[in-house]
């Protein structure tokens, strides 16, 4: 098994998460800072003028577009005012253009990543946590606990995932603050998503219960607490980890989808989903394609987690033989 795909995936994921965490240092602007004279400005071009990196001033044209004005030059300044890079006003630095309020899309993608990535991680932790506990209990103890879990989980699986998510969201308050909305999203996604990990863990715990080393330990008089701690929980660890690596990207997308539909975290706090909602109007999309940037930002994250889960799954299948 070659190691470089896994290592590079981990590197990419670490870099993106670090970028989101350090958004307040890396982003040239705050997420809600508006430049009303630069609405829908295209991505800034950085030029080399012989001694330093500069951006040109923007001049608004009659038709609504922008043109660079090479007579006004603003040097890029690094590590000033606690930010990695910026230019002095009235110069502007928009790596990915601006949106309809003149807010810097690049900065908002970084800040938005905080919420989108955090939702994925926390919701997956919640879902795998609940699923792991219930699945282990059902698989290990069997009997009525197992029956209840399996029948109950079928109810959750009978609705398509997104419909289920929306149906649960429908019965909760619509207009709430960003923090409550974030917690609500984590709660809904994790609370609805525990079913799959629970069923998988249950299957593994069921087979673990009949393994010779568990039977032997039981024969020596080990109680359920010892068996769970020493044998069953470690035995189900790989499947729970694999599930987590499958679920995190799925839940990042769930947050993006819900916020995109206007049912998640709302303006002005950015998430990748509510930023994409602006790209939904196709006049905006054809004229300002840089509004798709938050969607593209999700791609390397998904790729990283795909490689991760494929590696885990391959490791799991090797372990069997």
């Amino acid at each position, binding site marked *: 098994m070659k190691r470089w795909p896994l290592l590079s995936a981990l590197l990419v994921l670490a870099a993106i998460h670090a970028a989101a965490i350090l958004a307040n240092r890396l982003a040239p602007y705050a997420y809600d800072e508006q430049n009303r004279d630069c609405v829908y400005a295209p991505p800034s071009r950085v030029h080399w003028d012989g001694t330093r990196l500069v951006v040109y001033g923007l001049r608004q044209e009659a038709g609504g577009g922008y043109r660079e004005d090479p007579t006004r030059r603003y040097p890029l300044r690094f590590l000033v005012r606690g930010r990695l890079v910026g230019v002095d006003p009235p110069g502007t630095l928009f790596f990915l253009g601006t949106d309809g309020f003149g807010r810097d899309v690049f900065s908002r993608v970084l800040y938005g990543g905080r919420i989108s990535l955090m939702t994925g991680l926390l919701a997956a932790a919640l879902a795998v946590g609940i699923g792991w506990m219930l699945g282990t209990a059902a698989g290990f103890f069997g009997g009525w606990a197992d029956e209840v879990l399996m029948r109950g989980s079928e109810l959750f699986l009978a609705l398509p995932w*997104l419909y289920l998510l929306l149906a649960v969201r429908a019965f909760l308050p619509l207009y709430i603050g960003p923090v409550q909305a974030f917690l609500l999203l984590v709660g809904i996604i994790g609370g609805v998503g525990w079913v799959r990990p629970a069923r998988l863990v249950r299957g593994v715990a069921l087979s673990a219960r009949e393994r010779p080393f568990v039977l032997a330990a039981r024969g020596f008089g080990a109680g359920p607490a010892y068996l769970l701690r020493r044998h069953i929980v470690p035995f189900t660890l790989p499947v729970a980890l694999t599930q987590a690596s499958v679920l995190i990207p799925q839940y990042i997308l769930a947050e993006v989808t819900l916020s*995109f539909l206007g049912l998640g975290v709302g303006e002005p706090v950015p998430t990748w989903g509510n930023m994409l909602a602006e790209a939904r109007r196709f006049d905006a999309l*054809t004229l300002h394609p840089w509004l798709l940037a938050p969607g593209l930002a999700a791609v390397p994250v998904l790729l990283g987690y*795909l490689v991760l889960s494929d590696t885990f799954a391959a490791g799991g299948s090797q372990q069997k033989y």
Partner: protein
Amino acid sequence: MRYVLRRILHGSLLLTGVSVLTFAFTQLAPGDYYSEMRVDPTVAPETVDALRHRAGLDRPWPVRYAAWAGSVLKGDFGYSLAYGEPVAPLVRERLGATLLLAGTATLAAWLLAIPLGICYATRRGWQEALAGAATAVLLIIPDLLLALVALLAAVETRWFPAGGMASADGSSMGVAARMEDVARHLVLPAGVLAIGMLPMLLRHVRAAMRDAMDSGFARSARAQGIPPLRLLVRHLLPAAANPLVSLFGLSLGGLLSASLLVEVIMGWPGLGPLLVDAIMARDMAVVLAVALLAAAFLIVGNLAADLLLYRLDPRIRAGK
């Protein structure tokens, strides 16, 4: 026959369970349609109580569930407060649109996935690596992004209509012209859905085919000189069919979820936009009806897959 009956009974029990759960959830949610009146100082609390009594909202929820379930069985899904009309005809029209979209996309995806997957399974070396990379790329593109880009492409090239299910002057066309119009509108959303489904299907088709190809019976058949095409059609495909039929049932849920998103983005008048609008308008009768229909769709699809598997796989027939 007993197996079939048991599966059908199981499916209907499941549907009943889902309906109880969703209905109970609407009742657990704080407040109802009349709660806002309580805030209004010009309306006496007795009036609100009287209104709630007239609407039957003061009865315990199991009683109300029974009344609701009874009318659903008669095909009456209640009354939409946002649209001001009964829910049933509203939902029926939307269900048709979703079925058309989802059905076309499923058909297209499977018709592509089976030959491509067989091709993929038989390749080794760099061709296999290339196909693997291509499926991985398709797999990581979010449906949301794919739909937005497709919309962008449609607007830029004007090859396909961007959004909607019919042209504005559709009602004045003849039947044939109208069908063609809908078909033209269908290409883009169905294409996006099919491409979204394809990589997952490809991976499974390949895995199932590889399993069949590597098994002992395939090797012995090849050794006896059975020609490759006959080997594929008569021996490998039936052996690979079992996991794929189960996958068909399982993939329906993912398809419907993706379809919801594509419908909203592309303005396809299916169940998805109806559900989102109903949530925004707090239109619980519609939310309930859509959730129930989505569950019914999924359960029927899984039932169909189970029954097909029963027909195809003698081991299940003998085992049960």
